């Protein structure tokens, strides 16, 4: 006859494997399992299904701990008295920033808002052309300059245009950059300062776009971007793949930054509001 202890040991071993394999990280996983084991003993939870249900709800709690509700409300992202509402989009190379901007633009347009895009990635080959195509697809206007122009001045011109055109939402695209490159992080700070100079509270949102396949380095990314320019939310992309994006647990817990949206494909409509319950269920699927 196996003891309850043995059965639980096996269960928690397999839970550890699920969590670590989902990129939740060793520290976070072991700490959560330790807390859950204590609670489970305290509350006398015996059946495996109940233990699993308990751990899932603990995870959902963690993810929602810095959010108003478990489903990000895009409308809440736009406090209607603020006009233009300025979103700055940041992140390391190739995570899906430009694509996500197209999706966000389409989403806001659907809610009846007027949207303007700012092509402030003046560095990467054909970045301007790429965003232009997304503007076309989302049927919104775009402010751009020449490749090699100063990104801060493009952002500035875009905000000026947004104000004079009485636009509801301005979304600023920036070049991908590694958080370890201090000159590039300085450039990002400058873009932010320039926006704030023109409009006191701008940017009202700074969304960090993260690739769901990213491992533990994602925590460093979030820390550095948060420290440099402040991050108000995360967009987790490429969740249509097999990666689980578990690094967000540590980011939410340590930095208090909520996940606001998820990217689930390469088309205009492939953006959803983040739902912690669905996210945790997918981890165990």
């Amino acid at each position: 006859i196996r003891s309850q202890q043995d059965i639980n040991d096996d269960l928690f071993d397999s839970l550890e494997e699920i969590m670590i394999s989902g990129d939740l990280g060793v520290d976070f996983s072991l700490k959560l399992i330790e807390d859950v084991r204590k609670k489970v003993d305290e509350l006398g939870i015996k059946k495996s299904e109940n233990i699993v249900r308990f751990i899932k709800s603990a995870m959902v709690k963690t993810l929602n701990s810095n959010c108003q509700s478990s489903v990000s409300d895009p409308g809440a992202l736009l406090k209607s008295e603020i006009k233009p509402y300025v979103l700055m989009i940041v992140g390391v190379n190739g995570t899906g920033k430009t694509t996500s901007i197209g999706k966000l633009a389409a989403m806001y347009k659907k809610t009846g808002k007027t949207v303007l895009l700012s092509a402030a990635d003046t560095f990467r080959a054909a970045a301007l052309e790429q965003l232009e195509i997304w503007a076309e697809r989302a049927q919104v206007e775009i402010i751009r300059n020449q490749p090699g122009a100063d990104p801060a001045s493009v952002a500035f011109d875009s905000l000026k245009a947004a104000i004079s055109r009485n636009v509801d939402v301005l979304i600023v695209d920036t070049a991908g950059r590694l958080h370890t490159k201090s000159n590039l992080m300085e450039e990002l700070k400058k873009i932010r300062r320039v926006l704030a100079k023109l409009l006191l509270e701008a940017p009202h949102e700074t969304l960090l776009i993260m690739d769901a396949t990213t491992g533990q380095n994602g925590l460093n990314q979030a820390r550095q971007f948060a420290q440099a320019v402040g991050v108000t939310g995360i967009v987790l992309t490429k969740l249509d793949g097999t990666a689980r994006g578990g690094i967000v647990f540590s980011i939410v817990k340590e930095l208090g930054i909520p996940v606001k949206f998820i990217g689930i494909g390469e088309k205009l409509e492939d953006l959803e509001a983040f739902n912690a319950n669905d996210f945790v269920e997918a981890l165990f699927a």
Partner: protein
Amino acid sequence: ELTDKLDLIFKNLKGHGKLSEKNVADSLKEVRRVLLEADVNYKVAKVFINAVQQRALGQKVLRSVTPGQQIVKIIHDELTNIMGKSEAPVTISGSPSIIMLTGLQGSGKTTLAGKLGLFFAKRGHKPVLAAADTYRPAAMRQLEVVGQKVSIPVVLDPAKKALDICQNAIKYCRKNGHDLVIFDTAGRLHIDKQMMDELLQIKKKTKPQEILYVADGMTGQDAVNTAREFLNWLDFDGVVLTKMDGDARGGAALSVRMVTDKPIKFISTGEKFDALEKFHPQRMASRILG
């Protein structure tokens, strides 16, 4: 510092005798944690630790180093061996020779096409780049700009399918005396059967000498799933790890190597076109161990 952590575990071990089973087991627990924090895949770490355990057990404790240093050296050597064995340079042998770049979305393929073009141009070849990404907005324009920056011709056609563009590029090479063509393909998911089949058809019809799987160096646990699927579909020849100029520990390097047994041929270390290095297994081992 791993050596210090392990020395604490060994602090009662004197300079003679053998590394005991308990000592080794405890220290390997710590090493496993370090590997997982470095993004080595969960199952890969287990297999690796078991292999090292055999090596470490019964080894005489050396006088010249601490037991912690001794274990770390065993780990380091084993990592280096696994990642460095059967090193193979890129095969250049057709007319033209063909290098096909494949991988997930955003891993750095288009940029790498320019880098590889420059790399081989410097070594006396006459490369051409083929813009076979017919999906991503402005992808062909992106490769066109890349080609201009490294002074390498780009074959593209917004009206054609990927396979046609690749075949046109081959014809262009033969017509104009170019000995190498690099296919830039669209990023795609390993679970997208239609897209993976597109790559398979390009492989079957053009028979590239070299197929490279291009993976983001900061990939976490999922690295094995994608690498394994790309291997099943394409039996690629080598791997390129990108964005290694960041501070990701790069455990994906060990995971991909152990699961596919294919060599890592290059690492990409920046956005500029000269930021391409040959893979050094020893340096990668040190980086993973932190």
